[in-house]
C-alpha cells in the first residue's frame, strides 16, 4: 500500500498545504500573485500524478486546465490589473504573521482530525488527499478573512477553489462534467472580478475593502 505512487501523491498534496501557508504571510500583492501561481502549479502536478496512478486520462484535462488558466493566465491578468491600478508597490498590513501561522496550523490539525476518522473505510489515497484538500480550503478561508484588499480576497478564493479541485481529483472516477465546470466557473469568476475591480477603481479610487465598508447602511444614515 505504501508504495512510491502513494508517497508522491502524499508529497504533492502536502506541498499544496505548504504553499497555502506561504500565501498567508505575503504582504506585497505581486508576491502574493506569484505564490498563487506556484500554488496552481503544485495543483497541476498533484492532479497530473493522480491521473497517472488512477489511470484516469480525463484528469490530465483537469491538470491542463489548472496549468493554463490558474498557473499562467490568471496570474498574468492579475499582475496587469494590479499594475494598472498602481497598487503593485503597496504593502498590505497583515495582522501578525505568528497569529496567522498558529491559526493555520490549528486549521490543518482540524482538517486531519475531521477527515481521517470519517473516511476510515475509504481508499487510503482518497483519504489523505481529502484531508489535505480540506486543509487547503480552510487556509483559503483564513486568507480571505485576514485580508482587506480586494485582490487578496480574490486570491484567497481561488486558492480555496484549488483545494476543491484537489478533492475532486482524489475522488476516484468522479465524472468529468464537474471538474470542467469548476474550471469554467473560475474563468467566469475572473471575468466578473475583473469587471468589478475596474468598476471599483472607477468609483472609489481604491480597492481597499475598508473604504467600501464605510458605505454600509448603519453608517450611511
Amino acid at each position, binding site marked *: 500500500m505504501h508504495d512510491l505512487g502513494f508517497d508522491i501523491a502524499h508529497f504533492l498534496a502536502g506541498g499544496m498545504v505548504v504553499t497555502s501557508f506561504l500565501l498567508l504571510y505575503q504582504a506585497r500583492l505581486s508576491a502574493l500573485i506569484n505564490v498563487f501561481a506556484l500554488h496552481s502549479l503544485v495543483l497541476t502536478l498533484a492532479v497530473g500524478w493522480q491521473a497517472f496512478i488512477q489511470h484516469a486520462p480525463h484528469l490530465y484535462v483537469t491538470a491542463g486546465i489548472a496549468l493554463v488558466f490558474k498557473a499562467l493566465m490568471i496570474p498574468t491578468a492579475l499582475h496587469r490589473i494590479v499594475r494598472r491600478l498602481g497598487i503593485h508597490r503597496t504593502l498590505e498590513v497583515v495582522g501578525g504573521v505568528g497569529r496567522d501561522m498558529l491559526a493555520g496550523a490549528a486549521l490543518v490539525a482540524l482538517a486531519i482530525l*475531521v*477527515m481521517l*476518522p*470519517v*473516511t*476510515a*473505510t*475509504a481508499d487510503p489515497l*482518497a483519504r489523505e488527499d*481529502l484531508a489535505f*484538500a*480540506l486543509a487547503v*480550503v480552510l487556509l483559503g*478561508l483564513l486568507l*480571505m478573512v485576514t485580508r482587506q484588499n*480586494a485582490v487578496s*480576497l480574490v486570491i484567497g*478564493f481561488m486558492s*480555496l*477553489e484549488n483545494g*476543491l479541485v484537489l*478533492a*475532486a481529483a482524489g*475522488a*476516484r*472516477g*468522479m*465524472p468529468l*462534467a*464537474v471538474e470542467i*465546470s*469548476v474550471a469554467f*466557473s473560475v474563468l*467566469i*469568476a475572473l471575468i*466578473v*472580478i475583473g469587471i*468589478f475591480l475596474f*468598476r*471599483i477603481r472607477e*468609483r*472609489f479610487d481604491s480597492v481597499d475593502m475598508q473604504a*467600501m465598508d464605510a*458605505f*454600509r*447602511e448603519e453608517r*450611511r*444614515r
Partner: protein
Amino acid sequence: MNALGVIAMTVLLALPAGAALVLVLVPGYRLGARLNIGAALFSLLAAISLFGAQPGANAYLRVDDFNLYLIVLNNLVSFTTSLFSASYIAHELESGRLTPQYLRFYHAMYQALIFAMNLALLANNIGLLWVAIELATLITVLMVGLYRTRAALEAAWKYFILGSLGIALALFGTILVYLAAQPVIGEGLPAMAWDQLLAHAAAFDPALLNLAFVFLLLGYGTKAGLVPLHAWLPDAHAEGPTPISAVLSGLLLNVALYAVLRFKMLMSANPAALAPGPLMIILGLLSLLFAALMLYRRGDIKRLFAYSSIEHMGIITFAFGMGGPLANFAGLLHMAMHSLTKSAIFFTVGHIAQARGTQRISTICGLTTTHPALGWGLVAGVLAIAGLPPFGVFTSEFLVVSSTFARQPLLALLLVLGLLLAFGTLLWRLHGMAFGESQGANTPVRSSSLPLLLHLGLVLVAGIWLPEPLVRWFQHVAALLG
C-alpha cells in the same frame, strides 16, 4: 420516458437559453421587454404541460412530484415578474437610471437566470445541480450591480464573496456525497444521480454522509439566506433592480432550499446517519428570531422586506426540520405562499420607490391617498405576509405552529414569539407608510396591477379553499420528504 414530457422539459431549458442569446442582439427595449414576457409565458406553458405528461428521469434530468410543483411556481413567478419588469424599466429609462445598453444586458441575464433556476430544479445529478446554482449566483451578482452606484457595487461584491464561499462549501459536500456513494453504486455518473443515490442511501457510510450534510447545509444555506450566513441578502435586495429583488426572494431562495431538502431526503433514508432535523430547526429558529428583531430598526423599505424574507426562510427551514407529514405539508405550502406574496410586495415596492423617488421609510407616508392602487396593494401584501387570515400565509403558519405545539411546546413558544414580533413590526411600519399626510415628491407612475392582483388572488384563494387534488398532492410530496 414520455415523449411529450421530454419535449416540455427541453423547452424549459432551451427556450430561456435561446431567448437570452436573442435578447443580447435585440436593440429596442420595448421589443426586448415583449420578447422577455413571451419567452417567460411559453416556459410557463411548458411547465404546466408537465402536469399532464411527467417524463420521469434520465441520467441528467428528472421530473418528480417534488420538483414539479417548484418548477411550475418558478415559471409562474418569472412570468409575472417579467410583466412587472416591463413597466418598471420603462420608468427607469425615463428617469435616466439605466441606459438602453444596460437593458439589453438586463433582459438577456433575466432569461439566463430562468434557465439556471430551471436547470437546478430539473437536475437529476448533484454535480449538475451545483453548476446550475453557481450559474444563478454569478448572474444575480451581475444583476445586483446593474446600477453601478457605490452602494450597488458594494452589495454585489459582498454577495459575490459570500455566495462563492457558500458555493465552494457546497461543492466540497457534493464531492463527499459522491465518495460515500462510490463504493456502493460504483464509479461514474450513476453515483451522482438522485434516483440512484436515494435508492442506495441506506448502504452509504453514515460518517461520511454526516460530514457531507454539514457542508451542504452551510453551503446551500448561505444561498437560502439562513442566519448567520445571511449578510449578503439585505444588501443585494436593497441595491439591485426591484424585479431582481422579487425573483431573488421569491425563487432563488426556494431553489437553494430545494437543494438542502434533497440532501435531507438522503440523510433520512440512511438510518445510521445523523438526524438532519435538529440542525435545520436551530438554523430556522435563529433566522426567524434574528430577522424578527432586525425588522424593527430598518430604514429602507426594500431592506425591511429582505429581512422579512430571511424570517420566512427560517420558518420554512424550521418546518422541514420538524419533519412529519403535517409540518412538511406546512413547509411546502409556505414555500409557495411566501414566494407569491413576497414577489407581489416587491412589485408594489418597486413602483412606490419610483413614485416617491426614495426607498427611505421615514419619507414615505400617506400612500393610500396619493396612489390608491399602490397603497392598498401594499396594505394587502403586508397583511398577507404578516400572516393575517384569510390569506394563505396564515394557513401555513398556523399549521407549522399547531404541529409544533403538539410535539415540542417549548420550541413552539419561541416560534410564536418570533412570528408575533415580526407581525407587530411589519404592521407598525405599514401604518406609517400607507396612511397619514403625504409629503415630498409625487410622480405618477404607470403601474400594471395585473401581476399583483394575480399573486394576491392566488394567496387569498389558497387561504380560503385549497382544492382537494392539490391537498392530496402536497400530502404525497410531504410523505416523500420523510
